[in-house]
């Protein structure tokens, strides 16, 4: 960082201290709000460009809203979709804070989910109070191990984690396909790659079954909230978390301060992997009930966006995860009601992140929404 840049940031910080309310308000409310609105408008333009007529566009956005927050069922779906995203997003956020760009949440999630399923049906004789937590733990450990490979390689040989985690993702797909064809994993009497089912006493119980058996939201919500709190505590209240953040902010300074860089890298990757693995375990134990090829369905990549959107802060990740969960649930409704492909949601998500991650861009588009800052302010 050059002198000029540090002066720039120093001035910004002074400004922020001088007028905290306004700047924080702009950062936390105005920018995301603009981002969502602009993304929706651009999404509508995309639909228009592909020959969808105006009434259908209107109907699809109504469906998007209804499907995400319009009913008890919609909220249940939103929460269900948010759970794995928040878990994996927390792991990635922790990595970002440590200066590790872990793209491997997808593979860690997949391996974690697979481990949870296998543990579940192998020890199906155990009682619920043991089997369910232990299955979750199996998922977390497997995720930690899988991410640990990339962490170890980075620490020991300097192999960049972006490349190694991408490769591990690709390997995990094949490994899953292979495992699903093994006799002791594949469901009896099936020729297609489907694992045995998770036994009932390993499943995460559904919370609202008494209201309507179709409500899918499950006890993973509580585990998720616990994880948010734990990661918050770990990052901002513990010594280890301080070391993580110090290594992320300035690796050289951290090393001169006597922090063990290699150990920190491996630990951060393992914790990130454990969280992603927990996300996968939650998904199979709470929603899917079994493992199929590619059951992660890109959750690990969406989680990157969630972590970025949440500014790598646990609470931010929680809200970003809920937003993405809502878009996912609403998108499904949109596809059913208006016949607009759910892939539109991907476009909207990407646009939201662009505007959140480039505040200068939002300011350039909507100069009137912000207090005038001299050139270059952020």
């Amino acid at each position, binding site marked *: 960082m050059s002198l*000029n840049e540090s002066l720039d940031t120093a001035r910004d910080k002074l400004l922020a201290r001088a007028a905290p309310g306004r700047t924080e308000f702009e950062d936390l409310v105005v920018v995301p709000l603009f981002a969502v609105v602009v993304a929706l408008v651009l999404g509508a333009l995309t639909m228009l460009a592909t020959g969808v007529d105006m009434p259908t566009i209107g109907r699809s956005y109504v469906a998007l809203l209804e499907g995400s927050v319009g009913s008890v069922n919609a909220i249940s779906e939103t929460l269900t979709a948010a759970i794995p995203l928040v878990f994996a997003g927390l792991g990635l956020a922790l990595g970002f804070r440590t200066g590790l760009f872990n793209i491997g949440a997808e593979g860690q999630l997949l391996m974690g989910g697979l481990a949870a399923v296998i543990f579940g049906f192998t020890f199906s004789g155990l009682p619920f109070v043991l089997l369910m937590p232990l299955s979750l733990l199996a998922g977390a450990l497997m995720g930690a191990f899988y991410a640990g490979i990339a962490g170890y390689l980075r620490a020991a040989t300097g192999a960049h984690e972006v490349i190694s985690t991408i490769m591990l993702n690709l390997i995990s797909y094949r490994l899953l396909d292979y495992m699903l064809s093994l006799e002791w994993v594949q469901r009896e009497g099936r020729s297609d790659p489907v694992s045995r089912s998770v036994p009932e006493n390993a499943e995460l119980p559904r919370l609202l079954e008494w209201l309507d058996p179709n409500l899918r939201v499950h006890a993973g919500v509580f585990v998720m909230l616990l994880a948010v709190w734990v990661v918050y505590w770990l990052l901002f209240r513990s010594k280890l978390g301080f070391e993580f953040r110090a290594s992320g902010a300035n690796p050289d300074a951290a090393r001169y301060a006597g922090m063990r860089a290699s150990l920190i890298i491996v630990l951060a990757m393992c914790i990130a992997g454990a969280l992603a693995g927990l996300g996968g375990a939650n998904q199979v134990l709470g929603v899917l009930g079994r493992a199929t090829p590619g059951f992660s369905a890109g959750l690990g990549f969406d989680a990157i966006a969630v972590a970025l959107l949440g500014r790598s802060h646990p609470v931010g990740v929680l809200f970003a995860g809920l937003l993405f969960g809502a878009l996912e649930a609403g998108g499904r409704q949109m596809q059913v009601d208006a016949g607009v492909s759910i892939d539109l949601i991907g476009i909207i998500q990407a646009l939201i992140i*662009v505007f959140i*991650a*480039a505040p200068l*861009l939002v300011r350039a588009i909507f100069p009137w929404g912000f207090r005038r800052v001299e050139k270059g302010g952020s």
Partner: protein
Amino acid sequence: MAIAEPQTPHRATVDLGSQRRTRITGAILLGLALFVVLVFGDAPGDATFRLSRPRDAWVLPNLVVPAQPFIYIAAALVAFLGARQFLRGGGRWTTLSLGIGLGLFVMAFLVWATADKAFSLTGMLQATMVRAVPIALGGLAATMCERVAVVNIAVEGILLAGAFTGALMGSVIGGWGGLIAAVAVGGLFGFTLAALVVTYRMDQIIAGVVINLFVLGLTSYVSSQVFAEMRHLNNAPVFRSWKIPILGDIPVIGPMLFNQNIFVYGALMMVAISTYYLFHTASGLRARAVGEHPRAADTLGIDVYWTRYVHVTIGGMIAGFGGAWFTLGTVGRFDENMTGGRGFIGLAAMIFGRWHPVGALMAALVFGFTDSLQQKLALLQTPIPSEFLAMAPYIATIIVVAGLIGRARPPAADGKPYVKE
């Protein structure tokens, strides 16, 4: 890629690291040797490699290798290299030994798989070249960007955008039109990336991830919303291979290099041109200066922002051309997410290739080789599950990145935004 490359402050740390790397390389090689003996050791009979097709102008005789002796010799050589690394390795030998060792391993594997059977080596080399094209172009695009210190994770998305545009515009206005449109769209996304990271100073990785997400969303959306109903919009003509007279008749090399479609020729030419440009022209030198020390370049009167815009846009155009290969060079039809991580492998190729166009091409050939190997081996019916063969290129990437990376150095300012005084 230098997102958070740790700067090693002490010479001692550097030596320790390289020593450990040497040990790891040695251990890997010894492990490979053991694997070769234990798994491949019982190969029966001879392995026959076909070098020519019956209708070729000059026909070479088949290459016949006695399987078991070859495998034991290969294992012995790999073990020797490994032991040498382990005992007193270091220096430049680490990389070379790993390369030779992996090469021998692949040869032993091929001989074992073809023992008592016949296998067309020429066909596989031709497929290698074809499959290397998108990876090489992705790596070249990333090289162009990183030489001016812009990390381009978006290569994956730009490849996908090129593939999509190639299919759509190719169906509407024909193959050449589709190709030009794909290059233009690639350039557009390159320009967008440059705008986001240079002008709006967005984090380069985030900008790349966002472009990937956006392109994936947009192309998947259009393909399920529009292509599903209007098939004629997704039915582009394919560029056939075009044989260069005389050169195309050379055995083995001819089919590999001189009997291909324009994407192969284009990729080879672009690698040659960009090597000349980057390392032998004044503007190439300026571009590299921007990548190494933008402040100094600025002081000398080089417009840093302009240089970055131009090179990232050119990088995007190269990736757009590479993306068109997926549709106009193969099947003429676009499928959701059809690039399947090739762009990321291109980034890995750039790192193997040490931020050099020729290096990126060579690394891409290695990937193309493992990719086509996996396909051809399915025909030979080896007892190894096909999933593990499919994993091989990725595992090889990890091994090579772990073994090589410490010796490659990215452009010094890579990944850092530049703020003009």
